[in-house]
């Protein structure tokens, strides 16, 4: 893709870190890894506006790992908090009360519970109004902070604390993941993308591209969660990579609603490889394999990519 990107190799990402070590977040947390990479590219002059979630606890009195600013709001309204800061800085600059070099980039960071569920209204409002902000949703596909209950971001078949697999419900979570990308895309924001911490260059290039636009710049990041998903902490990046390579987590962007995939796997790895390494899907394999559910998941992924191949590569498979 970006032949003109200034991020050509991983070494181009060795810039200043704005998230220092020592956070109280879980060892191997996918969300903080994404935030760290994201923040490097965004630079230091940022105010992060947060809604209740795991990352909230990153800034817990009297500690903050951030070298930037932080505003915790409440669970439903981080984008509204961003609106207040953006509006205030704008009017104060307009009135000449503060110099432009005191301006900050305003960025929202929330989990999927806030983005997909309780805060959907406030994010829709902010996107609709064209608020000039970044939104980083770290999607660990459940309410991780409260002990991993399902959210509308939970995928089919996942065990969560509120969708336990039982003989009556062998599949665990029965509904399909809400498509937040499409909901946000319907607002036609200038920039929208999915990202994965396994693909840091892709993150960097997307932010680089997004920065050219004024208005909402939205990112949904897959955030493997070792305790919630049930895998060893060392597997976080591998899990994110598997999600991309099995095609269950497509890497794509949409500029004013026009979708383009930034990574098109020519041969999808079987989704089983991804599912079977996580305890949340263990009941689909043990004691007996639930081939039907696995096939449903695999089928949906393939259907998705057939459409992508057709539309973006002009291929019919």
């Amino acid at each position, binding site marked *: 893709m970006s032949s003109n990107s200034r991020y050509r190799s991983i070494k181009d990402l060795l810039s200043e870190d704005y*998230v220092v070590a020592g956070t109280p977040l879980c060892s191997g947390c996918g969300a903080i890894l994404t935030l760290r990479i994201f923040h490097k590219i965004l630079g230091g002059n940022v105010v992060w506006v947060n809604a209740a979630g795991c990352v909230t606890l990153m800034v817990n009195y009297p500690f903050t790992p951030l070298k930037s600013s932080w505003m915790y709001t409440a669970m439903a309204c981080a984008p509204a908090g961003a609106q207040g800061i953006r509006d205030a800085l704008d009017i104060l600059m307009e009135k000449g009360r503060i110099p432009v070099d005191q301006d900050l980039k305003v960025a929202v960071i929330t989990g999927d519970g806030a983005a997909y569920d309780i805060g959907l209204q406030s994010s829709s409002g902010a996107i609709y109004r064209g608020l000039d902000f970044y939104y980083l949703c770290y999607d660990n596909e459940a309410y991780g902070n409260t002990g991993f209950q399902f959210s509308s971001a939970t995928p089919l078949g996942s065990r969560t604390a509120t969708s336990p697999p039982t003989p009556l419900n062998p599949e665990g979570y029965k509904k399909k993941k809400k498509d937040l990308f499409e909901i946000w895309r319907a607002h036609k924001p200038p920039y929208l993308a999915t990202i994965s911490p396994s693909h840091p260059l892709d993150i960097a290039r997307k932010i680089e591209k997004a920065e050219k636009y004024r208005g909402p710049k939205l990112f949904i990041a897959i955030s493997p969660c070792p305790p919630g998903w049930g895998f060893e902490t060392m597997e976080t990046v591998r899990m994110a990579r598997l999600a991309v390579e099995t095609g269950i987590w497509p890497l794509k962007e949409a500029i004013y609603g026009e979708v383009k995939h930034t990574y098109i796997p020519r041969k999808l790895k079987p989704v089983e490889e991804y599912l079977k390494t996580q305890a949340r899907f263990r009941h689909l394999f043990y004691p007996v394999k639930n081939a039907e559910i696995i096939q449903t998941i695999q089928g949906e992924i393939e259907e998705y990519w057939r459409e992508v191949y057709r539309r973006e590569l002009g291929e019919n498979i």
Partner: protein
Amino acid sequence: MLIYARFHGRGGHGVKTASRILGTSAHLEGFHVQDFPIYGAERRGAPVTAFTKISDDPLKLLDRGYIFNPNLVLVSDESLLSDPIANPLSGIQTGGTAFINTTKNIDHLQIKHDNINIVVGDVTGLSLRYVGRVVLSTGIGAIATKLTGMIRWNSLEEAVKEELQEIGIKGELLEKNILLAKTCFELVYPAPLPPPSQQKKYKIVELNWTHPPYNIPEIWNIGNTKIRKTGSWRVFKPLINLEKCTRCSLCVIYCPEGVIEMVDNSLVVDYDNCKGCLICFNECPVKAISYVREAEAV
């Protein structure tokens, strides 16, 4: 008889389950019991605490909340001893007992408290041997149960089954845990647990209005988490072989904590804060990173 047991561990160690194993086994013995954990801001790996109160007299359990004067303390990770937030031995009853999960000999531990009984054992090692991974709940729970001197193996076995099934552990894994419990139960002897007494007299102060910004929940001292030293969370320590390393920098980028830094074409790890997630080990394309158990690291 009154036992105030306080469990210190890190998120993910299973101290809550350990406290419940003790609670349930005491309950099965017919004692009056209360147990509860504290959930705070802390995530997996950070210090957490759980409490179990046991008595033969319900009136002695007219009590709620934290235990500040335990007569039994169980520390699931030796590194907690020097953690100012966990401060596991604070308030321990004179003559009381502390169990510390460590590979070290008692003489090599830094313990400032006099007049307490220290019991040590390598529950992590036993857990790795019997269960194949680090599960401290069963081992610590079993040790706590034995240290009380009031609870029989049958009650403990029943309690382990109940509590582990509650968190979805069954079948072969449960059997392994029971074996681990049995081993730990036989590892220690009943310890002296003098009844807890209120050691500290609390003084009441009068608060007044405080000038801004001190009355506002804000942090101005940004980027200050390094002083927390999350390196103490580590179970396994990653080691970089600089001979094999190609300086590709992937470990620097993929480290969630940002503790690996490229300095003068060499890699430096901030072990004070490395939580030991081992993503670097897993992602290194030339396998230049290995790891050792923290307790065995020099």
